[in-house]
C-alpha cells in the first residue's frame, strides 16, 4: 500500500471516533512539523491528529497498526530542538497538546498525576499555589511537556531528590504499539484505575520487570504515554541562593561533590559566563556582551532551603557546612553574583519556573542553537570540558561563546554536561561539522550519550551491538509493526531489526 493511500485509510478509521477538528491536514500546519532547529532531516507529516483521552490514543494506534502508518508523538509546543519529533518517513503526527489535564495533585503523598500535554508553564504555578515545587530542568520552555521531560530523563536542578536517573518519574499509563494499554508500578492494579486505591507512587514493577524504564529515553518508540505520575516536593518556606565562582571548573566540581554527598544543598548547578549572560541579559546584544565580559568563567549556583518546620535553623546549619566546604577548597560562597550587576533576585526567580519570554534563552544570541549533552561522573567533568575546548579550537569556534552547563544528577553520582552552540543562518554547515566531530570525539573519550538524538544514534549504537540487539528484541515485543516513531535510535530497519 502506498503511503498516501495508507494514511487515507488511517484517516477514515480515526474519523469514526475523533472529532472533526481533531484531524488536521492543512498543508501549512503540517509543514511546521517537518523540521526543527536540529540538523535532522526526514519525511513529511501527512496528517495531524489530536487525541483527547486514552481511548482516542488506543484507537489511533490500532488504526496505525492496521494500516502500517508511522506515528510520531509530539507533546511540547515549538520550537523543538532534537529531531525526535521530525518524521523520519511520511507519518501521522499525534499531538498530545489537548490532553492537558492535571488529574491530581496529592498534598499528603506529594505527587501529581498528569496528562502528557501538561506543560511546565501550566503546572509550576498551580503547584506553588498549593505549597509545592517541581524539580525542573534548567529553564525549560513554558510550553514544554512535563511528562515528556520526565520520560526523556532530563536532569533536574536538585540532585539530592534524585535516587536514580528516572526519578522523579513514578508510574505510567501507556499504550503500546499493539494498541494494548498498560499501567506500571503500583498503578498496575489490582483492578481498574477507578477501583484501585493505591496512589501509584511505587514506580517499580509490576512483578520482575521495571516496565517504566522501557518507555524512558525512547523518544516515543516503545509506547505512547497517556498519563504519568511525578513526585513533587515541599515548597521551602525559606530559601537562600549562593554563588561560588572560579576561573577553572575543577574546584567547583570538587565543591559540588562535597556538598552533595553531605546533602547540604538543594539546587546545585554550574553555568559558564556565556550561559549566565544569555539568561540574565536585559537586552541584546549590548547588555549580553557586557555581562559575558564581566561574569566569571564558571559560576556554581547552590540553593539552601528550610521547609515548613524550623526553616531558619536548618538554613543556618547548612550555611555553616557550605562555608566550611568552600573554605577547605579556597572558594567563597556569596549571596551576590560577581559581575552580575545586582541580578541575584532575577536568578532566584528564574530558577523557580520555566522561561516565559520570547525568544527562548538559547535563541537570544543567534537563530539556532545546537546542544551537545552527555553524562559522565563528576570526576571526569574537567577532562570533558577540555575535550570540548579542543574541538572548538579545531573548528575555529570561540569556546567562550559556547554555553556551558553542569548539572549533577542522582545525588552527584553522575553529571549531565551540556554545551550549547549558538548558530547563525550563515554558519550552519560549519557548526554542523563542529557538532558532529565534537560529539564523536567526546564519545570516543568516554562521554555517555544516554539520550542519543539525531546523528548520535548511529555513533552510540554502532559501539554497542549487544545492547542494540537487546533493545530491538524489546521493540519487537512492544511495537511489533514498528509504527511508533520509526527510524529513531537503533530502530532503523523495523521492529525486528
Amino acid at each position, binding site marked *: 500500500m502506498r503511503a498516501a493511500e495508507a494514511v487515507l485509510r488511517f484517516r477514515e478509521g480515526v474519523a469514526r471516533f475523533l472529532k472533526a477538528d481533531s484531524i488536521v491536514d492543512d498543508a501549512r500546519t503540517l509543514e511546521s512539523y517537518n523540521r526543527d532547529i536540529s540538523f535532522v532531516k526526514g519525511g513529511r507529516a501527512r496528517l495531524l491528529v489530536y487525541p483527547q483521552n486514552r481511548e482516542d490514543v488506543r484507537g489511533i494506534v490500532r488504526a496505525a497498526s492496521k494500516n502500517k502508518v508511522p506515528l510520531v508523538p509530539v507533546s511540547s509546543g515549538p520550537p523543538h530542538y532534537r529531531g525526535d519529533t521530525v518524521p523520519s518517513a511520511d507519518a501521522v503526527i499525534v499531538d498530545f497538546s489537548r490532553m492537558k489535564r492535571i488529574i491530581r495533585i*496529592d498534598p*499528603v*503523598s*506529594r*505527587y501529581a498525576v498528569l496528562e502528557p500535554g501538561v506543560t511546565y508553564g501550566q503546572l509550576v504555578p498551580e503547584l506553588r499555589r498549593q505549597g509545592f515545587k517541581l524539580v525542573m530542568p534548567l529553564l525549560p520552555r513554558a510550553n514544554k511537556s512535563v511528562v515528556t521531560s520526565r520520560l526523556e530523563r532530563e536532569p533536574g536542578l536538585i540532585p539530592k531528590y534524585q*535516587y*536514580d*536517573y528516572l*526519578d522523579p518519574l513514578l508510574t505510567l499509563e501507556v499504550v503500546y504499539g499493539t494498541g*494494548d494499554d*498498560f*499501567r506500571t*508500578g*503500583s498503578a*498496575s*492494579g*489490582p*483492578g481498574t484505575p477507578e477501583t*484501585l*486505591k*493505591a*496512589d501509584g*507512587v*511505587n514506580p*517499580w*514493577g*509490576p*512483578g*520482575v*520487570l*521495571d*516496565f517504566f*524504564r*522501557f518507555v524512558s*529515553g525512547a523518544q516515543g*518508540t516503545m509506547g505512547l504515554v497517556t498519563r504519568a505520575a511525578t*513526585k513533587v516536593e515541599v515548597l521551602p518556606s525559606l530559601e537562600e541562593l549562593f554563588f561560588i565562582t572560579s576561573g577553572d571548573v575543577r574546584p567547583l566540581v570538587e565543591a559540588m*561533590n562535597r556538598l552533595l*554527598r*553531605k546533602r547540604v544543598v538543594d539546587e546545585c548547578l554550574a553555568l559558564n559566563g556565556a550561559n549566565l549572560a544569555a539568561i540574565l541579559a536585559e537586552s541584546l546584544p549590548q547588555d549580553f556582551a557586557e555581562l559575558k565580559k564581566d561574569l566569571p568563567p564558571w559560576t556554581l549556583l547552590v540553593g539552601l532551603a528550610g*521547609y*515548613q*518546620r*524550623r526553616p531558619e*535553623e536548618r538554613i543556618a546549619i547548612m550555611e555553616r557546612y557550605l562555608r566550611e566546604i568552600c573554605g577547605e577548597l579556597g572558594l567563597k560562597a556569596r549571596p551576590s553574583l560577581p559581575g552580575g550587576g545586582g541580578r541575584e533576585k532575577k536568578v532566584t526567580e528564574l530558577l523557580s519556573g520555566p522561561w516565559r519570554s520570547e525568544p527562548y534563552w538559547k535563541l537570544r544570541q543567534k537563530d539556532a542553537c545546537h546542544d551537545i549533552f552527555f*553524562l*559522565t*561522573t*563528576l570526576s571526569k567533568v574537567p577532562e570533558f570540558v577540555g575535550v570540548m575546548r579542543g574541538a572548538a579550537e579545531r573548528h575555529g569556534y570561540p569556546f567562550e561563546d559556547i554555553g556551558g552547563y553542569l548539572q549533577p544528577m542522582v545525588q552527584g*553520582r553522575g553529571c549531565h554536561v551540556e554545551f550549547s552552540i549558538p548558530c547563525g543562518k550563515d554558519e550552519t554547515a560549519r557548526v554542523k561539522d563542529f557538532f558532529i566531530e565534537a560529539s564523536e570525539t567526546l564519545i570516543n573519550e*568516554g562521554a*555517555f*550519550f*544516554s*539520550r*542519543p538524538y539525531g546523528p548520535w544514534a548511529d555513533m552510540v549504537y554502532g559501539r554497542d551491538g549487544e*545492547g542494540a540487539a*537487546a*533493545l530491538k*528484541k524489546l521493540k519487537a515485543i512492544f511495537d511489533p509493526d514498528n509504527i511508533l516513531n520509526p527510524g529513531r535510535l537503533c530502530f532503523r530497519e523495523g521492529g525486528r531489526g
Partner: protein
Amino acid sequence: MEKVMSLPKEVYQALLKVVGPENIADRPHILAALRHTNPQSGRQPPSPAAVIMPGSVEEVREIVRICNRHGVRYNAVVSMFGMGGVVSQPGMLVISLRRMNRIIEINEFDRYAVIEPAVRQVQLKAEVFKRGLTYPTASAGPSCSVLANFLTSGDHHTQQSSSRCSRYLLGYEWVTPTGEIVRVGSLAHGAGWFCPDGPGPSLRGLVRGYGGWGGGLGIVTRIAIGLDDWKGPRVLTTQGHSPDYKIPFPPDCHRVFIFKFPTLEKVRDAMTEMGKAEIGQAVLKFFYATEAVLFTVSANDFRDLWNSGLYQRELPRALWVYLAAWTPEELAYEERVMRDIVEEFGGEPVDASITRKYEENMDFFILVSFLQRVLKLGGGWSPTKLGADSIHHMFEVAAAIPEFFYDFIEKGRILDAPHNFQVIPMEYGHAAHIELLFFFDNQRPDWQQIPAEVMQKSMESDIRHGFHAATPPRVKAVMERLGPLYSNFQVWTNKIKETFDPNNVSNPGPG
C-alpha cells in the same frame, strides 16, 4: 529417597572442560546439601543434577551456551537464602557463583563500588565503612550476597534517608539466558559504572522490577552500586561477645527514639511529616513480635518477654526514629523537629528498656547482624504483603490486616501478634514498603499449609479492597490467574521471557 536425575555424560564432560574437575560435582552427598528443606515451608525441594562453580564471566557464558545446546535448565545461586529452593525443577544444573567474590573497585570520589555476585554484605560493608562510605543494606543478614539483594529483594531499615537497593544499581554485566554478554548503560560505552539507563530505552528494566527474577532471566555477573557518605564510625567497636554483644555509636551524632501513639493514623501522620521535614536516617513502624525475637537470645527469653505483655502494650502503634547527623548541632536540630512532630500527633516515649536495646545495638539499622535469630524459636515464620506505595496507602493496607489475620490467630495457627507488620518509608516519605510477618508452630500437623493460606487470604484482601500491597509471584499458574487484575503484566512478562530465553533454560520456575 528422591531419585537424582543425572546430566548426560557428554554434557557433564563439556561443562568439566570449562571449569576443571575441582569445580564441578554430581556426587550424591554434595547434591544433598543443595536440597535442604526450607524451614519456612517444610517443602522438600527437588534435587539438582550437578553443581558447577565458574570463576569468571567467560566461564559463565560457556556454561550457559552448553546448557542451551543441550536443553539443560540451570539456576545461578550464591547465598541459597531464597525460600523457593536452589532449583525449581529436578535435574537442573546449579551454577554456584561463590568463587566470583571479588570487590573489583571502590570509587570513593564518585561513590560507587563494583562487585561480583558472591561478595557478602559483611565483606563489603566493612570495606566501605573504612572509607567513610555506606550503601543501602537489605535486612537479610550479613552473610547474604550484596548483588542478590540488589537484584531480588532490597528493602531495608534506613530507606527513609535513601531508597530501596534497586535504586542504587548503577550498572551490570549480564550473561543473557542464551549466553551473550551484555554490559548495560554507561558501562557498555566505556564511560564507567555510573548509569544503568540508556542509551535510549533502559535495559536496566529487564533484570528486576519490584522484585527480581530469581535466576529466571540469565545471570548477572557483576554490578556497580551507589555509595553514600557514612555518618557513623569507620570501625564499629563491639563490646562483649555474641550473642550478648553491644555496638553503640557516638551519642553526640547518633540517637534512637521510639514513640507510641494513640492510633495508627497518628503514627502514619507523624511518619509523613518527618518525611516532609527531611529528617531521620531511619524512620519506621517496625514488627513488634519480630523485635522481641531479635532482641532475645533464646526461645525461653522470647517467651518470657512476650508473655510479660510489655511489647503488646508499648509497641503496636509505635514509631522508631534513628537520627544521625554530621554534627551535634544538626542532631539537635533534627531532634527538635522530631519532638515538634511527635508532640503534635500525641506521641510519647515507650518504656526505656525497649529503646535501650537499640541504643546498645545500633548495628540493627545498618546490617541486622543478628537476623538469623528469627529462626531460633524452632517454629516457622513467613512474610506476606511485601509491596510498596504511599505511606498513606500502606497504612490503609495495614488497617485491613485484622480482617483475615484474626481467623488464623483465633484458631491458634499463628502467634497472636496482629501488629507484627512494618511500614518503612523511603526517599523521605515519597513511598513506603509494607511487610507482614507471622510466626507459627511447626509441630502442628497442618503447619505446611499455613504460609500459603495466609498469603492467599492476604492477596484476596488486597484484591477485594483494591490495595496494591504485593504483586503476584512469578509462579505461572498464579500469574495467569491474577495477572489480568494487574494490567495483564503476565502477558508482557511471558513475552520477554520467551524472547530472551527461547529454550526456557534459565530457572523456568516451578510451573
